[in-house]
Structures are given as C-alpha cells and as structure tokens.
C-alpha cells in the first residue's frame, strides 16, 4: 500500500467495538498477536495491523482484506493479548460487517465456505460434507483441488454419499429464518 492513511473519524472503530464487544482502542501495538498468529505468513495485514487500521477508520482496507478470511479462529491472539482484547471476536465482527455491507469480496474463499457450510446445515440440520464441498467448489470455481482425495475418503468411510438429516431439521430452518429476520431489522 503506497497511500498514507490518515485518521478522519472514529465511527468505524466504534462500530467494530460495539459489534465485537471488545475494546480495540486499547491496542498499543505490541504485536504479540501477530507473533503468535499461525497464518500471519499468508495474511496481507497481520492481526496487529488490522487493529491499527481499525483505529484509523480504514474501513475499505480492513473489510476488503484477505486477513479477515484467513483468520482460523484459533484464539491464540485472544488468549495472549496483554490488553485483554478479544481479537478473534474482532475478526468475526469484521467478517460479518463485510457481509452486511454487501461488499464485492474477491478471493474471500472463507465467505464462500461459510455460505456452503451453513446452507448444508439449513437444509439437513447437519453438515452433509459431500454436498457442502460440491456447493463450495461451484461457488469458487475451484473444481480440482482435493478431488484426488475423494476415492480414498470413500474407501475409508470418511465421506457419506447420502446426507444424514437431523429429525429437528424443521426447527433448524425456523431458527435460520428468525435469525435472518432479526438481522434484517
């Protein structure tokens, strides 16, 4: 990034703090979260940089980042932050904000995975791995990765050909519908 970011408003910081229920403003950039982050190497911004960008109100940079979709929710940062910031919860809040704002997210495969996974839960009450994987591959166009593993997984009984539906699937669909209605209000 070549442009110099300048602070202009604390609206974004305040929204992130409200939605994550944690004090992002307490971050003093010790970088302990980034040091222990398992996927820091793959991220465009390290967790401590994401915190700083939130301070600066750099909404487009944060919500458009790959970092928020690379976070594996391992909770190492949350456990270790000397200021008690729930950094993993901040990552969740940022992902939800990116979805709510209907941003065009390129390469956010995590989002497509989440949609495929939750679609399966809504349909069956449980995850039907085969269907979920197919839905994910169609969404991302990434048709070939891991296809070679399918025969082996079938032989080992690790993939079911048919979904195992929960007897409470109607209840699950009702929960999804109500959650959506509340989010839309």
């Amino acid at each position, binding site marked *: 990034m070549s442009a110099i970011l300048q602070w202009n408003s604390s609206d974004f910081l305040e929204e992130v703090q409200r939605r994550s229920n944690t004090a992002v403003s307490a971050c003093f950039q010790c970088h302990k979260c980034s040091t222990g982050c398992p996927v820091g190497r793959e991220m465009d911004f390290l967790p401590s940089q994401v915190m700083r960008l939130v301070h600066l109100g750099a909404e487009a940079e944060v919500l458009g980042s790959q970092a928020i979709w690379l976070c594996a929710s391992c909770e*190492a940062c949350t456990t270790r932050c000397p200021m008690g910031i729930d950094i993993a919860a901040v*990552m969740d809040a940022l992902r939800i904000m990116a979805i709510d704002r209907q941003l065009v997210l390129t390469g956010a495969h995590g989002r497509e995975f989440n949609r495929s996974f*939750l679609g399966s839960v809504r349909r069956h009450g449980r995850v039907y*791995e085969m269907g979920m994987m197919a839905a*994910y591959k169609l969404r991302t166009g990434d048709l070939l990765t891991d296809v070679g593993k399918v025969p082996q997984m079938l032989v080992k*009984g690790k993939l079911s050909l048919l979904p195992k539906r*929960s007897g409470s699937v109607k209840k*699950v669909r009702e*929960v999804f519908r109500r959650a959506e209605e*509340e989010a839309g209000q």
Partner: protein
Amino acid sequence: MKYAFFPGCSLESSAWDFDRSTRAVCRTLGIELEDIPDWVCCGSTPAHASSDSLAVALPALNLQKAQAAGLPVMTACASCYARLRTANHKVRNEAADRERTERITGKPYDGGVEVHHVLDVLVNHFGPDAIRAKVSRALDGLRVACYYGCLLARPPEIVAFDDPEHPTSMDDVVAATGAEPVAWPYKTECCGASLSMTHAGAVSRLGQKLLSMARQAGAECLAVACPLCQVNLDLRQADASKAHGTIPQTPVLYITQLVGLALGLSSRQLGLRALTVSAERLLAERGIATVGAREGKL
C-alpha cells in the same frame, strides 16, 4: 457416570473412527452415553463468522434438549466443544444474548447445562489412575506427541479444563496407557482448522511444521482429540511432506483409539482402518496386538 452425548457432524462422517472409539472406550470404562435426540449442527466456525445469533442459537437447540434430559453434555469434537461452551458463556453473561437466543429458538435457556470434552471426562471425572487400573495391554515403548490444538485449551475462561499454553491432560491419559508422552513445544499451535478447504497450502505448511517437530522431539505417532486436527495432519500428511519437506510417515490417532488399544479393544472396535497413515506397522513393531482380547464382547 452418565452424559448426554453430542457427536457432531464430523463424527458421522470423516471422524467415524473417533465416534466408534469414543463409544467403545466409554462402554468399557462404564461411562454411560445417551445421544441427544435429533441433535443438530453446532454451526462451527462458519456460524460464528457469519451471524452472532446463529452462533449461539444452534448450540442452544442441543443444550436445551440436554437440559430437558437432566444430563451434563459430553462431546468429542473440539470445535463442537468450544461452540457449546461459548454459547453457554454468552447466555450466562450477556442478557441480550440470552433474550435473543430464547426468542429465536422459542424456548427458555439459562446456559446452565454443563459441557465436557471426552478428554476432560477421562482425566477429571474418570481419572488416569482408574484408567491405569483397567489397562490390559500396556502400550509400553510407544512414544506419543500429544497434540491439543487450539480449541481444547483456548480461550481459557471459556473452555477451562487445562492450561492454555501448556496443557497436560492428554499427556496424563497417554501415560496411563503405558505409552510415553514426549515433551514438545507445539502442543497448542494451530493446524489451520477449517482453512483446510479454503487455504490448503497454509494447512499443509502448518502440518509439516507440527509433524516434523513431533518427530524431532522423538515421537513416532501423534495423539489428537479433534476431527479437524486429525484430518489436517493425517489426510494432508503426504501433501505436507511433498510441499514443505519430507517427514517419515507418522500415524495420527485419536486419544480414544490409544486408550482403547490399552483397554484391549481391537482395531475393528476402534476404527483404525480409517487412518490414512496406517498405525498397524508401528503397533506391530512395538508388540501391541490389534486383535482385541475383548473382541466379540461388545
């Protein structure tokens, strides 16, 4: 000792051997499990990364059923465990979360159901000494790296049965089987979890790092207690070895499979054939028979 068992989706498919070995071990130890009727998915990471309300409501649907049965919950999947405990934590501590959860599920829930991981049950409810007393085939000479991963120990105020940076509960169980838990530094490093689908390259990098460190520390196999850890380290082991540096083939067993072997259960009763990197040769080399003395008794 009786629990409402929450198997979770992985235990019905990719981790069927974790399901089978957990049930077999509990039966052998006299720990009674009653499946939560018509249980539903906990939502896992996709729910908490997409919707605050689903992240609590989906686990709550199961917890409400356990509460009606009047039983504490036991689960084997580390991710389900963390999601159920997190839902309880939120319902107990945030009035807004409790109100929303009750509204969305249409039922009251106070967050009061106890939730335990099978490792917690083995160590803190049953106890390593009681396991040792039931061992009929000690796993002498087997060197095991206990891999806890993320969600069994973090964040401590939610999962709370072991130390977040230096957990020892699985080491205690492994020692009770007669095997030797090795000291190694990556017990709680992340394997990449659900990035397995979206960023397989990162997952094989992390897997290689973990497996080569376990080898360096003298381990010849790993013990895990999470379906995602198992798949990432076992199914992706060949990819990891190829992409990031060769590691000798290292079986990755569920802790319940190791305990089951020590209790005299058979390969079939523990689902050992599900492992991508077979453990049969290593077990044979250590003189650990996999045809169970108890075969036919279950």
